[in-house]
């Protein structure tokens, strides 16, 4: 924790205690929702209305505004999960465990979205729902990695050891993802030639890039919201014997 400004260190320290985490999250949530909705609406508006149709793909390219940010998020969340896992393993910070496991279903969701939207985009463009294209294939394997993490967590009863297991698996996965990605890329160029890269034109017009970036940021905020929602539930389950949870449920009972 050296080289970190004092106020951030204090913030992190407070966040590391479950009741504070719960309270801070509660207070943060409306703001996150607000920013997310604003970004989402402006992203959708500029993506679906303002951006002109693509000269090759017509209107169908508009799937890009959810497909590409989801694909980015799927990798981003996996690396966040692995980082949180590493912190949990090394410093045994309970909250890092919670963040790691709460990220997994959100990441799996984005991976699923990237696959489905990719397939829906591929049908009109390539004439088939599924091609063994390098990116779709790596995304599919990434989905399996996510499902493995979720399955492992649910299979182990003791939640603290389950978190350690998840952290180890996420770290192993994060080292493997570049290798898997590289191998799949290599495999697909070997087998079919780089003809399906109609989708990545060397440059993308600014009017399309801006909504894409707005959606990407909106999805980051969505991730924060969804992850924190899960984290809150997870913290409650783990801390159910603590006094602060008891008094909270008592208030619930009274009301």
């Amino acid at each position: 924790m050296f080289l970190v400004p004092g106020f951030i260190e204090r913030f992190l320290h407070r966040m590391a205690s479950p009741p504070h985490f719960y309270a801070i999250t509660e207070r943060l949530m409306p703001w996150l929702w607000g920013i997310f909705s604003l970004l989402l609406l402006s992203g959708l508006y500029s993506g679906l209305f303002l951006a002109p149709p693509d000269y090759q793909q017509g209107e169908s390219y508009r799937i890009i505004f959810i497909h590409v940010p989801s694909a980015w998020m799927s990798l981003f969340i996996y690396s966040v999960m692995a980082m949180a896992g590493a912190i949990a393993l090394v410093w045994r910070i309970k909250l890092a465990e919670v963040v790691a496991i709460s990220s997994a279903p959100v990441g799996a969701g984005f991976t699923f979205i990237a696959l489905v939207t990719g397939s829906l985009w591929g049908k009109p463009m390539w004439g088939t729902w599924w091609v063994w294209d390098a990116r779709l294939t790596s995304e599919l394997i990434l989905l399996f990695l996510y499902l493995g993490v979720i399955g492992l967590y649910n299979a182990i009863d003791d939640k603290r050891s389950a978190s350690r297991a998840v952290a180890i698996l996420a770290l192993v996965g994060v080292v493997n993802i570049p290798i898997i990605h590289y191998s799949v890329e290599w495999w697909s160029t070997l087998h079919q030639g780089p003809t399906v890269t109609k989708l990545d034109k060397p440059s993308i017009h600014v009017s399309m890039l801006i909504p894409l970036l707005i959606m990407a940021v909106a999805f980051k905020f969505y991730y924060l919201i969804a992850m924190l929602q899960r984290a809150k539930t997870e913290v409650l389950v783990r801390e159910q014997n603590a006094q602060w949870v008891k008094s909270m449920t008592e208030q619930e009972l009274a009301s």
Partner: protein
Amino acid sequence: MSLLQAFLAIVRRDLVLAFRRRSEIANPLLFFILIITLFPLGVGAQPKLLQAIAPGIIWVSALLAAMLSLDGLFRSDFDDGSLELLLLSPYPTSVLVLGKITAHWLVTGLPLLLIAPLLALLLGISERALGTLLLTLLLGTPVLSLIGAIGVALTVGLRRGGMLMSLLVLPLYVPVLIFASSAVDMATAGLPVSAQINIMVSILLLALVLTPWPAATALKMSIN
């Protein structure tokens, strides 16, 4: 020096155990041959077709055989308490785990190399590709044992860990499958294979250095 002795003691113990139990060596091998026999029955016996998909068949079967045998890697040690003693040893657990993986490979990976000529015969792989097949098996099967050890270590404490283990481990096997089967493919077509072999060597070295630590950590987690 004594660390080496501890390592060798583990390898020797597991080899002796495997020879006393026998089925541990025979079952994965028979399973491997059996799956390969099933493929011609499933896809038809045209020599051209079989030759084309042979590398894929061999490697997918090798992955499945490795999966089958992996389940026993820590199972009996977990059941009889030897695993606890392994973890309480003052020597680094990762080295002892590497010993167990080594023994596992000697018992289940190495025999695959020995029956490779038989497979070449069954699937009509050309003679010039046989050497490449052997080389990919030599480089690839240890990686299967090494990566698989992490999956088993994570699931050994669970009642029905087998299915979960394959979900955890099979996606990680993708690079080995791709490079190994494409090397055999290329060799059949008479093309150079040094790129694939070089990559497989680096994957093996990487796995050798990087996998024992997470496997050891996962075992500590499983034992509680």
